[in-house]
C-alpha cells in the first residue's frame, strides 16, 4: 500500500541537514540584505516618469525602503523600473537593457502601459513588457499614486525575502550570437 512515506527520502544524513540549514540561513540573510538595497535602473519612456520622480522625492521618499538610488547604467542596477509605454520599436532596447543587468535582478512594470499596454491598443505599442521580459511586480494606475508604488516595492521586498539566494550561483552564461536565453 503506497503511502506518503514512500516519497520521502529514505536517508537524510546529518551533513545534508546541516548544509540545508546553513543554506537557509544564508538565503535568509542574503535576501534580507538584497531587499533593502534595491538599486534601480529607471527605464522611463513616458509620463509615468513624473510620478516616478515624485515617489523618489522627499515627501514619499523611496529611500526609506532602500530603493532610492537610481543607477544610470544597467550594470550597476538590480531593479529594472519600466516606467511608461514601450512600443515595438523600443522593445529590443528594453530587452538589451534587461540582459545587461547582472543577476540577481528584478523587474517592476510601473503603470498600466508597461503592464498591459494600457489604452494604446494599436499598431505601435507593445501590449505589456512581459511579452519581452519577465516581470516580478505589476503596479497598475495611469499613472499610479506614489502610495501604490510604495506598496509595489514592499510587495517586491516580500517576494525577494521569500526567494532562494545563494552565495555562488553557477549558471550557464549566455553566449553572444546564440539565441537570447530565456529566464
Amino acid at each position, binding site marked *: 500500500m503506497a503511502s506518503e512515506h514512500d516519497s520521502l527520502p529514505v536517508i537524510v544524513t546529518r551533513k545534508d541537514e546541516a548544509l540545508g540549514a546553513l543554506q537557509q540561513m544564508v538565503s535568509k540573510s542574503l535576501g534580507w540584505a538584497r531587499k533593502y538595497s534595491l538599486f534601480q535602473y529607471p527605464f522611463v519612456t513616458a509620463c509615468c516618469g513624473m510620478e516616478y520622480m515624485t515617489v523618489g522625492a522627499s515627501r514619499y521618499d523611496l529611500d526609506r525602503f532602500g530603493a532610492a538610488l537610481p543607477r544610470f547604467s544597467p550594470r550597476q542596477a538590480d531593479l529594472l523600473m519600466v516606467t511608461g509605454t514601450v512600443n*515595438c*520599436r523600443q*522593445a*529590443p532596447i528594453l*530587452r538589451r537593457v534587461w540582459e545587461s543587468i547582472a543577476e540577481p535582478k528584478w523587474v517592476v512594470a510601473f503603470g498600466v502601459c508597461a503592464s*498591459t499596454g494600457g489604452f494604446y*491598443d*494599436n*499598431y*505601435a*505599442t*507593445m*501590449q*505589456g513588457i*512581459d*511579452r*519581452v521580459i*519577465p*516581470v*516580478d511586480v505589476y503596479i497598475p494606475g495611469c499613472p499610479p499614486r506614489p502610495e501604490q508604488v510604495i506598496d509595489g516595492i514592499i510587495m517586491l521586498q516580500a*517576494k525577494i525575502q521569500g*526567494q*532562494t539566494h545563494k552565495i555562488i550561483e553557477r549558471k550557464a552564461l549566455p553566449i553572444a550570437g546564440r539565441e537570447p536565453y*530565456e*529566464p
Partner: protein
Amino acid sequence: MAKVVIDALLARFPRIAADPYQGPGGDDVVFVRKDQIVEVCRFLKTDPGMAFNMAPYITAVDYLGQEPRFEVVYNLYSTSLNHRVRLRVKVPEGDAVLPSVCGVWRGADWFERYCYDMYGIRFTDHPDLRRLFMYDEFVGHPLRKDYPLRGRQPLVKERELTEPYRGPGAASPDQA
C-alpha cells in the same frame, strides 16, 4: 486678409489652382494640382505680398473608397503679414508621387517623411526620404485606412502565453 491670397493665386495660376472655399476658423482653402505644387509654393514664399515664410504643418489624408484616394494638405503661415492659407493636393493611389517642397521650406523635410511613413506617399527630390516614426523593418503604412488596427510587427520574439489570466511567461519556481 486671406481673400487677397486666394485671389492672387487664382489670377496667377488659373489652370493650377481651383475651387477655393472658406474653411472653418477663417482659413481659406484652395485646391492645387500636384505637378505644379512647387511653383505655387515658391510664389507664395517669395512674393512680397504673400510672404508665407513658414509651413507649420503638412499632412496627408486617406479618403478610402474615393478617387483620387489620397490628399496632401499644406498649411502655410506668414509671420510678417499674419495670414494663413491651406493648399489641398489630390493624389491618386496608383501614382502617389509628389514633388518635394523641401527646397522651398527646409522644415518640410520631416513632414514629408511623416507622410511617406504613415501613408506611403513618396516625394521626389527629397534629400532623405526615410521612415520617420516606424522602424525600417515595418511593412506597410499604418495610417492608411486599410491597414489593420492592431497590425503589430514585433521586432523581438514575444514570449509564449502560458497563463492566460496573468499574461505571458509563467513564473519560474524560483520567482514564485
